[in-house]
């Protein structure tokens, strides 16, 4: 029936939804026309970090014709117990962080809702608060696990003895600030009730997860909640689970009997949807004269909230990067009067590898050894802590090939040697890694006609290219051209998909899609009469059986910076990433993901910082004018390439995740280049010019 077609996987196919996106026809959560009686909601947020809300007074004259409801814990519908306490919105008088939703105004117009919310009188009894992370905090404690389920502390050998004995050691502390995901589309929900069923047009990374979570709060089984997530304007982790906007919109729709739209204002994203925890990381490295590491110690201090324990896995990458007989990693937390930190692109690896990879650079300097050679000499043969062999590891190849492509070899290792006009120029390198994961998912394929297939899975495309690569995967598994495949995603009523997170989307969903398509093909090619026009596949069992350890993507970043000797301004003249991330499913979208991660890494190195005001108990730069992310003018030469890596122990496609590895290591490469340019070691991110200037 089918003729052999050229494989679609590996082809640089243009994004399927691209034409809609460039014409403004792609619809996002706040853009659905859901009836003439649509109402708008606006959140009144807490102006204090800790306290009690005793009452809310509404001025009856304000927007009187348009206000439909003012909800707060004194009158809001009761929700069922929430696993995530931040979703128990308007349920209690307790204020746990500044920016917490205290009241919700629902009005006929957006303008009226906003004005009425601004004029609410919140009767608050304020308590003292503590929002400052420090290494001598009396309430520091060691959690049992760090995300998602790693032991918080590991140790083997005798680290202290190794440090005593080592001829060369490095003992450095790096700190990274709180960061905010800041997707361009603020979190938004349009909610309506159809009888007892709830419909949510919601911007998120996991439609079935949102359906289950929000449903549980309203005592509804997941199938009674329909989450539509056709397009998502970025998430970077902050939309991985339901956020308060979905619950508030559903509540408001229930109370008013109208469809309700709640699009969070940009400022609210700095408190209500999560952030990356600040970290203070001490890294100690001990080495023999030849550069071989004898001990690695990585201890992390970070925060969580009063509401619950979120323990970022900052030191976990250190457990498998380099060989050393004596090793220790640990995490300590303090629970502050802050919003709960959440996932932000490469949670753990991104900040953790800043400290490790900068410390490795410092060690290379101490040893007078090329930083690439130092890394090569410490290449492990198996995963050092688990003893499990790597399914594939081409880190050294990334370093070597990257060095060739970047032009590393004639580098003078001494700092502060190249000067052109007012610019000091330097180069730096750093390693990258990200775990390869897959999570259970189910997909369905239907043959609609001899040359037309519909493939369904409740996945979300946040701009990753998921819709496109899944179409390619399905086409290959069905052995038909991509033009015959219609991919349906972004709807919780489709077969259950795992979250678009942890760089696991394509592996998880592609596995299910492959399984379903192969099942359909084998049933139709079998001579029996059971030939069917539909097949479904659930990957749970296969994933359950899989070895989880030893599976990682690797990469190497190279940066060239120039630092203005007069102003201290840093410009990244070149940024180059070489990756070994399994089979690349679509080179066009993959390159964009790598580059996007690297650019966010540049932001982490140079621009991004949520600035805490301890007196107010919040971050003060809570908008896009003051929370700086890279702009067009910050980008000069930037490129990503990859090795042709085969790994048949992963999933049917042989792919590793690529959404996050770009941000891992790129900040360290830039910081190392700043040192090489100027001799100034920045150990407190970001590398603002006021930290550099006094030293050059």
């Amino acid at each position, binding site marked *: 029936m089918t003729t052999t077609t050229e494989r679609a996987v590996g082809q640089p196919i243009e994004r399927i939804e691209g034409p809609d996106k460039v014409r403004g026809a792609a619809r*996002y959560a706040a853009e659905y026309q859901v009836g003439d009686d649509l109402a708008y909601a606006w959140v009144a947020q807490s102006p204090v970090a800790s306290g009690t809300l005793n009452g809310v007074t509404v001025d009856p004259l304000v927007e009187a014709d348009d206000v439909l409801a003012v909800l707060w814990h004194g009158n809001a519908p009761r929700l069922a117990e929430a696993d995530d306490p931040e979703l128990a919105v308007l349920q209690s008088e307790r204020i746990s962080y500044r920016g917490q939703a205290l009241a919700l105004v629902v009005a006929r117009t957006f303008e009226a809702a906003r004005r009425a919310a601004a004029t609410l009188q919140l009767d608050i009894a304020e308590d003292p608060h503590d929002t400052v992370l420090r290494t001598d905090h009396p309430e520091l404690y060691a959690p049992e696990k760090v995300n998602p389920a790693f032991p918080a502390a590991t140790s083997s050998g005798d680290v202290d003895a190794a440090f005593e004995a080592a001829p060369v050691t490095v003992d450095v502390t790096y700190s990274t600030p709180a960061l905010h995901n800041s997707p361009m589309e603020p979190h938004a929900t349009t909610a309506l009730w159809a009888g007892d069923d709830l419909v949510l047009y919601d911007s998120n990374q996991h439609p079935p997860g949102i359906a289950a979570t929000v449903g549980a709060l309203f005592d509804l089984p997941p199938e009674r909640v329909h989450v539509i997530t056709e397009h998502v304007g970025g998430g970077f982790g902050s939309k991985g689970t339901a956020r308060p906007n979905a619950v508030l919109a559903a509540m408001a729709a229930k109370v008013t009997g109208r469809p309700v739209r709640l699009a969070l204002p940009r400022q609210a994203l700095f408190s209500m949807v999560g952030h990356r925890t600040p970290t203070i990381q001490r890294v100690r490295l001990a080495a023999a004269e030849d550069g071989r590491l004898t001990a690695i110690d990585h201890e992390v201090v970070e925060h969580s909230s009063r509401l619950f324990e979120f323990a970022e896995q900052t030191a976990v990458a250190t457990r498998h990067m380099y060989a050393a007989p004596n090793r220790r990693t640990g995490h300590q937390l303090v629970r502050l009067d802050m919003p709960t930190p959440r996932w932000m692109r490469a949670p753990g690896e991104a900040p953790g590898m800043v400290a490790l990879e900068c410390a490795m650079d410092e060690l290379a300097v101490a040893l007078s050894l090329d930083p690439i050679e130092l890394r090569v000499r410490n290449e492990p043969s198996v995963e050092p802590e688990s003893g499990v062999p790597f399914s594939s590891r081409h880190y050294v190849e990334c370093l070597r090939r990257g060095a060739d492509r970047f032009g590393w070899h004639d580098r003078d290792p001494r700092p502060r040697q190249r000067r052109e006009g007012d610019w000091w120029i330097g180069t730096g390198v750093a390693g990258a890694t990200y775990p390869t994961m897959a999570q259970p998912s189910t997909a369905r394929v239907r043959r609609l006609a001899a040359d037309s297939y519909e493939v369904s899975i409740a996945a979300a495309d946040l701009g990753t290219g998921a819709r496109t690569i899944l179409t390619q995967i399905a086409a290959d598994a069905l052995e038909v051209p991509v033009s015959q495949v219609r991919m349906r995603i972004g709807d919780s009523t489709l077969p259950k998909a795992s979250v678009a997170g942890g760089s696991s989307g394509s592996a998880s969903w592609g596995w299910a899609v492959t399984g379903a398509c192969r099942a359909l093909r084998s049933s139709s090619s079998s001579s029996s009469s059971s030939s069917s026009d539909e097949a479904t596949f659930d990957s749970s069992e296969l994933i359950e059986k899989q070895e989880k350890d030893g599976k990682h993507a690797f990469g190497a970043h190279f940066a060239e910076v120039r630092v203005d000797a007069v102003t201290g301004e840093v410009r990244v003249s070149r940024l180059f990433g070489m990756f070994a991330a399994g089979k690349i499913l679509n080179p066009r979208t993959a390159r964009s993901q790598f580059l996007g991660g690297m650019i966010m890494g540049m932001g982490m190195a140079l621009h991004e910082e949520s600035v805490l005001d301890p007196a107010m108990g919040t971050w003060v730069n809570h908008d896009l004018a003051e929370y700086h992310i890279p702009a067009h003018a910050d980008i000069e030469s930037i490129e990503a390439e990859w090795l042709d890596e085969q790994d048949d122990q992963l999933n049917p496609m042989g792919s590793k995740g690529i959404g996050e590895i770009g941000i891992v290591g790129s900040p360290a490469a830039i910081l190392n280049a700043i040192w090489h340019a100027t001799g100034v070691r920045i150990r407190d991110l970001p590398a603002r010019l006021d930290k550099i200037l006094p030293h050059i």
Partner: protein
Amino acid sequence: MDLVVNGAEQSLDLDPRTTLLDALREHLGLTGAKKGCDHGQCGACTVLLDGRRVNSCLILAITLSGSEVTTIEGVDHPVQQKFLEHDGFQCGYCTPGQICSAVGMLDEFSQGWPSAVTGSGPPDLSDPEIRERMSGNLCRCGAYPNMVPAIREAAER
């Protein structure tokens, strides 16, 4: 008030506080222009007002009686095709603003307007010029390196 949007006359009865962006999105159903910040900080809401690029979130609609507005839905420009070819976007949320901004920027450029990086003499449309002139449009996905060649090639056509 009356407004010409994408060539069609529109009569609107608006709250005086309604921005052009909200008038387009909530009253005219033209959701192509995006709201990223509502404060003139991101460029996602960029449209063409009487041919010039503006942040529509910063303008009150009632001040615009008789003006002509072009939104992404009314744009038909080579830069759109070039964005597809170069993968000049990921999530697509900044994209309508980037494209409207590019169209407006190319027009400014063709009229000889200088930018902060223009030297003496007539500007030439180098990559640094494009980046400088497009820097009011943020992209959190980091699609910048793909947008610049897309805009350059569209200009060359």
